[in-house]
């Protein structure tokens, strides 16, 4: 037998060719999603693979999903990418740009208009119409409205985050108040009275409006006041900024009074002590928040719970508060939209929605879950606040529109600009962005 010795050079050459071939093969366009295409062609008895991106979870949620909810769904194999909010936008953007997306994914409060505008979410009206007793009517009307873009339902809310006024009964009692405020006048009076100082230094904030850190920290609480003043961020047709209208300026003037004139908190306000928000740590008498203070108090400071209460939204021109609504979207690139819808209805059925919401102590989007056992008395007050809820305007560039407002708010609350100047400058900047798209 004629054996030939492989020289070092030949070996290197072959390795080089093999590597180059591998790279070319790896770079070649895929012949299609094998899992999906096989699923399309496969007999119906074969299980289908569905992929999910989940960003709203705590450890307990993950456990509930994997041990109680997913095992009950036998029509598909479910793979989940658990991710985090701080990288989620980039992940989804690159996923859609690359054409490989999860079938079902969660999205934040401002995502629905973006998803609809980009054509990334599937319209669900036909599915909802044929969904039998699944019960879309059970969702709060404000939540349904928020998920409807240009007359089409593009998402299904799974959680909402409603903020109302939390207060410390002990700190209010120390200042001579036995009931929480119900309107702006009372709020200002109590905030001033409960602010404690050591010389010039504030030691207890009468009202914790915002803390240091994130760029939306000042903007989010402004929304409650704007909505109580019956103002809006944009005109109804979303073409013009309305923050320079009288109600919006009135709201800004009120906040300016509280922070710059009355100094019921330093600016920026107190930071969290680790996970303890100032109201839980006892360094703030009142604040606007979701169920977060109670969750944290239960976990880290149970002795505080007796003094921690929440009230229904305050009134000014109207009784209102802001709601953040997180939603499920079915990807427009899903190869199995029908099966994905089936999974979505399964996950948001009354029983499974309750399990999911209870796992993280989230507010459930279904009205019928108002009596759910896991909801505490405080959580029920927040749940009922949903009747006064106003969501964000549905402009697809909302995050970009927020930015100039956030910058101007910083200038106003640090005393460098008057409220009227702030709102005028904000609207100029926002209208310039809106004009670009127009």
């Amino acid at each position, binding site marked *: 037998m004629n054996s030939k010795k492989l020289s070092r*050079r030949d070996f*290197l*050459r072959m390795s*080089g*060719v093999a*590597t*180059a071939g591998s*790279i070319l093969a790896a*770079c070649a366009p895929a012949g299609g999603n094998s899992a999906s295409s096989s699923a399309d062609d496969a007999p119906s008895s074969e299980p289908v693979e569905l992929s999910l991106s989940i960003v709203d979870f705590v450890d307990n949620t993950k456990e509930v999903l994997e041990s109680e909810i997913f095992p009950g769904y036998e029509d598909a194999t479910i793979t989940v990418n658990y991710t985090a909010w701080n990288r989620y*936008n*980039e992940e989804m*953007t690159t996923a*859609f*740009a690359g054409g490989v997306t999860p079938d079902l994914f969660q999205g934040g409060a401002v995502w629905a208009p973006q998803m609809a*505008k*980009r*054509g*990334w979410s599937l319209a669900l009206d036909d599915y909802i119409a044929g969904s039998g007793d699944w019960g879309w009517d059970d969702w709060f009307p404000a939540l349904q409205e928020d998920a409807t873009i240009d007359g089409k339902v593009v998402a299904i809310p799974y959680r909402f985050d409603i903020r109302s006024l939390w207060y410390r009964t002990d700190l209010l009692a120390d200042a001579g108040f036995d009931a929480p405020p119900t309107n702006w006048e009372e709020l200002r009076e109590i905030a001033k009275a409960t602010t404690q100082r050591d010389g010039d*230094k504030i030691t207890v904030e009468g009202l914790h409006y915002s803390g*240091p*850190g*994130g*760029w939306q920290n000042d903007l989010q609480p402004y929304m409650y006041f704007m909505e109580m003043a019956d103002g809006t961020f944009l005109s109804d047709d979303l073409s013009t900024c309305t923050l320079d209208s009288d109600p919006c300026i009135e709201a800004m003037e009120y906040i300016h009074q509280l922070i710059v004139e009355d100094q019921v908190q330093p600016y*920026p306000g*107190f*930071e969290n*002590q680790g996970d303890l928000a100032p109201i839980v740590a006892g360094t703030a008498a009142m604040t606007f928040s979701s169920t977060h203070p109670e969750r944290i108090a239960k976990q880290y400071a149970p002795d505080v719970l007796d003094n921690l209460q929440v009230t229904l939204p305050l009134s000014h021109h109207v009784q209102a508060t802001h709601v953040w609504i997180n939603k499920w979207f079915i990807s427009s690139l899903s190869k199995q939209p029908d099966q994905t819808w089936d999974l979505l209805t399964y996950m948001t059925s009354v029983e499974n929605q309750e399990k999911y919401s209870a796992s993280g102590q989230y507010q459930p989007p279904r009205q019928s879950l108002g009596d759910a056992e896991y909801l505490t008395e405080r959580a029920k007050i927040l749940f009922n606040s949903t009747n006064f809820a106003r969501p964000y305007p549905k402009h697809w*560039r909302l*995050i*970009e529109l927020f*930015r100039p407002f*956030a*910058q101007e708010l*910083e*200038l106003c609350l*640090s005393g460098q600009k008057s409220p009227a100047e702030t709102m005028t400058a904000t609207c100029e900047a926002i209208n310039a962005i809106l004009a670009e798209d127009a």
Partner: protein
Amino acid sequence: MSTLTADPKPQATTIPQVSWQEKIRRWLGGETFTAYLFLAIPLFILFFIKIYPVFYNVFLSFTNYDLFSPIKFVGLKNYQDVVSQDVNLKAIRNTLYFTIGAVPLGTALALIVAGLLNQPIRGRVIFRFLFYLPVITSVVVSAMIWQWIYSPQFGVLNYALGLVGIPEQNWLSDPNLALPSLVVITIWGSLGGHMIIFLAALQDVPAELHEAAAIDGAKGWQTFLYVVVPFLRPVILFVVVTYSIGIFRNFGLIFLLTQGGPQLTTNTLVWEVYQNAFGYLRFGRASALAMVLLFTIFVITYLNFRILREED
């Protein structure tokens, strides 16, 4: 009579005819082909990962690309936006402040620390390790550590300042302090890496130079300043150039600690690129900003070379 005869024709050398197939076969079997083959792999990767994106970025900077609409050519509009919008001009300014704040001070400190740790002092290996530690620490961990150090109410820095009667400062929330605070973290994080480079260079300084300086009566710091530092000029140039480029690309700290705030005082070019690309899906404008970033790096690098390169 002599007969002149023509020189005999020179003997023609017979060159064997080689077919083109044989030429190719030889070439394929030669070392040159092997070299090209191996070069092809990194060049292929380099082209698709580095070179192609740069040219594609140039192209995108003249479009309104937003991932989901058809690409539309918009001429110089994105560049006009970059130079006319206050937010972008602030980003350029902040980037330059950041570089000017961190590079000279950081380089000087690294050089001084390297000079000190080049001396035969006790425990210098431990000191070198401690100075180098931040370099191998993840930027996320560094950011968390400094977030606690800078915490207005619970931070060790304010506590220490309080002991000498200085009131609490909002290090990361005060528009006047946020950028300098990031500069300090950047210097802390990079000092060790530059120190190692300088240490290596210091060990190449000929002993004769030290001896000659000593004979001329130079004191220790004079020797360092007038003999050692000029000798290290090429290394200083290297550190300054790579340091400047590193700061222009600094993203992690801003993302984790300030997100461009307060009042846009830490809004740098690279953060603005990120915001436009992933926050607003304005890839055209983000590309134009990236081109401005590239151009600014070229200018800064050129200036560094002009100032620091060795005289002929």
